[in-house]
């Protein structure tokens, strides 16, 4: 099982324009300038690949921080 820190790092890897060093568990990811529907799909695919958990679009939409997403993933493992 990956830790929250590892999850944050995996999340940061998917980003193109945001400095990874500024991304933390508390980052409100949907407020990022580069946040898009494609990034939402990318996040869901990354979680599917790394955790074998399939999130729904609404899981992402109802999360505020990266930690919120991590907690949903953990609850579905």
């Amino acid at each position: 099982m990956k830790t929250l820190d590892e999850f944050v790092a995996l999340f940061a890897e998917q980003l193109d324009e945001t400095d990874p060093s500024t991304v933390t568990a508390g980052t409100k990811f949907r407020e990022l300038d580069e946040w898009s529907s494609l990034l939402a799909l990318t996040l869901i695919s990354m979680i599917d690949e790394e955790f074998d958990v399939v999130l729904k679009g609404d899981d992402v939409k109802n999360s505020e921080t990266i930690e919120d997403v991590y907690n949903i993933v953990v609850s579905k493992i």
Partner: protein
Amino acid sequence: MTKNPFSLEGKTILITGASSGIGQGCALMAAQMGAKVIVCGRNEERLKETISQMQGEGHSTFAGELTDQSVIEKLVAEIPSLNGVVFSAGISMTAPFTFSTREKFNKVFDVNFFSPIEILRLLVKKKKLANEASVVFISSVGGNFGFSVGNGIYGASKAALNSMSRLCSLELAPKKIRVNSICPGMVVTPLVEGFSENITQEDIQKDMDFYPLKRYGKPEDIAGGVVYLLSDAASWVTGQAICIDGGITAY
């Protein structure tokens, strides 16, 4: 009285993916128009449930996994001569390009492309298609007429299908077999629920509002076009990919 050119009376039609969605809609409408339908799917019970909703007599089921070569061969060996085939079995997949692995491509192409093409190949080779038979592939606007992010694998499988459909229309024309595809926009079916899991209700409403006719399709919206292509009214129609899409590709 002359025969209604849109009628399917006297025709035997094979429909794959007939236990739900567009395939089921096609089975219901083909039966309503007088066809004897062979409904194909993975689950016998669900196929019987489809037949119980169909008008007319003489319908039958074929249950099996149509990605399996031995099942395809069994199907082709068992069925009678056909006047029409509708390939509607399909699966969806949403993945951004960077997560579009060979494994995902294989899974989708097996069902959406290789299975229907192999069934058609054997139907023709074993002479199971009657004179002037009509073949209809259920394709999609995605891949040829519309592109949306995350839809690459599914779109590519349908673009491949459209390509083979057109090729087959030429190669099978000497046998007077017509081959066309129907390209639906978003139709409310279990398959589309697969897509929509990854997006929010808000996104779906926004997408629906983008359609000139302001709604997603219903299986019967597609079945109307399929029945037309199966009927004698479409005797001079082959090699086409017809969009039935609430106007989405009109932009």
